[in-house]
């Protein structure tokens, strides 16, 4: 291992790191915004569920490398465009979260919803103030899986030329230089670990009632 390589290339590594985060995290945010209304539909209407859940399952089955390659043809983007990776990972995030959101909302106790209705909550306010917060623990669990797998998946994009830190893998392979590859692996795992821990903390902050302990069962 030639560790001096890291400080000598720190500028480029940071650029790749930022690109990596951009490619991995935009899909998490966009995916969440799309998955909440879709998951709500699926939890509310049986026909919507019968379409959305299997469709999500099928989309999740499509291998990422395949999706990275096919998307330029469908979107009309250049193959080296970051958009392909972002759209592909957004699709996975939505596919994963729709199910999570639907299950989480379905698990909100009926009595709580009835109590909120009796207090005068209209459906939209009730959804935002009561049902969604109660779904947060399950939602966070889904977001953690999506974030960690996105951070890991971005690197596959290096095979088609856009892969954030994954570019250290393809370049390290061409140059027969293990240091570069180890650096990439360690940084990606660190990013995933930090993202996971941040979401875990966010979940704790967002659900103060769960720390009170007694009475609430997830």
């Amino acid at each position, binding site marked *: 291992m030639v560790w001096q390589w890291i400080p000598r290339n720190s500028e480029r590594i940071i650029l790749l790191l930022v690109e990596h985060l951009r490619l991995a995290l935009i899909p998490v945010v966009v995916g969440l915004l799309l998955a909440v209304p879709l998951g709500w539909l699926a939890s509310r209407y049986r026909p919507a569920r019968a379409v959305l859940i299997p469709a999500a399952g099928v989309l999740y089955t499509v*291998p990422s*490398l395949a999706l990275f390659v096919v998307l330029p043809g469908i979107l009309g983007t250049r193959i080296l465009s970051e958009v392909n990776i972002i759209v592909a990972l957004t699709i996975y995030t939505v596919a994963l979260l729709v199910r999570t959101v639907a299950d989480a909302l379905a698990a909100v106790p009926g009595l709580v919803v009835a109590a909120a209705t009796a207090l005068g909550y209209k459906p939209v306010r009730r959804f935002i103030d009561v049902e969604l917060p109660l779904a947060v623990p399950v939602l966070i669990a*889904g977001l953690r899986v999506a974030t960690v797998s996105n951070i*890991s998946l971005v*690197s596959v994009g290096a095979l088609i030329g856009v892969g954030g830190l*994954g570019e250290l893998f393809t370049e*390290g*392979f061409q140059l027969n230089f293990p240091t570069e590859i180890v650096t990439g692996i360690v940084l990606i*795992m660190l990013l*995933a670990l930090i993202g996971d821990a941040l979401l875990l903390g966010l979940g704790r902050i967002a659900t103060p009632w769960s720390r009170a302990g007694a009475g609430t069962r997830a």
Partner: protein
Amino acid sequence: MNLFAEVLAWFADPQHWQGSSGVPARLAEHLRYTALALVLAAVIAIPLGAVIGHTGRGSFLLVGIANGLRALPELGLLILLVLLTGIGLLPLTVTLLILGVPPLLAGTYAGVRNADPAVVDAARGVGMREREVLLKVELPIALPLIIGGLRTATLQVIATAAIGAYISLGGLGRFLIDGLALNDYPRMVAGAVLIAALALVVEGLLAGLQRLIVSPGLRTAPMRTGSRRPTPVVAGGTA
């Protein structure tokens, strides 16, 4: 000619269905890499998950391993192994094996762990030894979750086996990597379609298998205990 027509033309060309670089040969290679890694992963993960689930010892370790491995970038691992051991089947098999272990381990562990304690006690009550309790009661009850883990593992391994083409191995990934190198877009799309189709077909077959071999006793009262303990998310990314 639009892309759709070009891809159809690619599939219609009989040349692409013959010889050692034709679709059937690449498909066979892809299935061979997948099967080899899955069998090895199952041999490691199912006994380990069963023992940890049965005794409850080491579950902290298991969750840590399963989560840590999910963050591991397979492409990086594969390339690192190639640089260390040389090009061949070994680096790809090890990479796919490491990918397949966590879902199988988590599924087996959760299935055994979540077996209804009353049923397990009853098994002990009728005089079964611990070994029998695990093999004849807990594992059959765990079967739906074990197969769930196998399905996740299979999907991920099929998807990731495509990157083997990057280190000069065969498999359906060849069409992607060669198409990219030659700027032959229809070939890349054909490869992508083939890999996705393979994943979907295998997923359908495994879902059918699950229905066939899971005990009818479990089917009539689905997830009775599961309503209290939510099934852990054993999903992961596909590469």
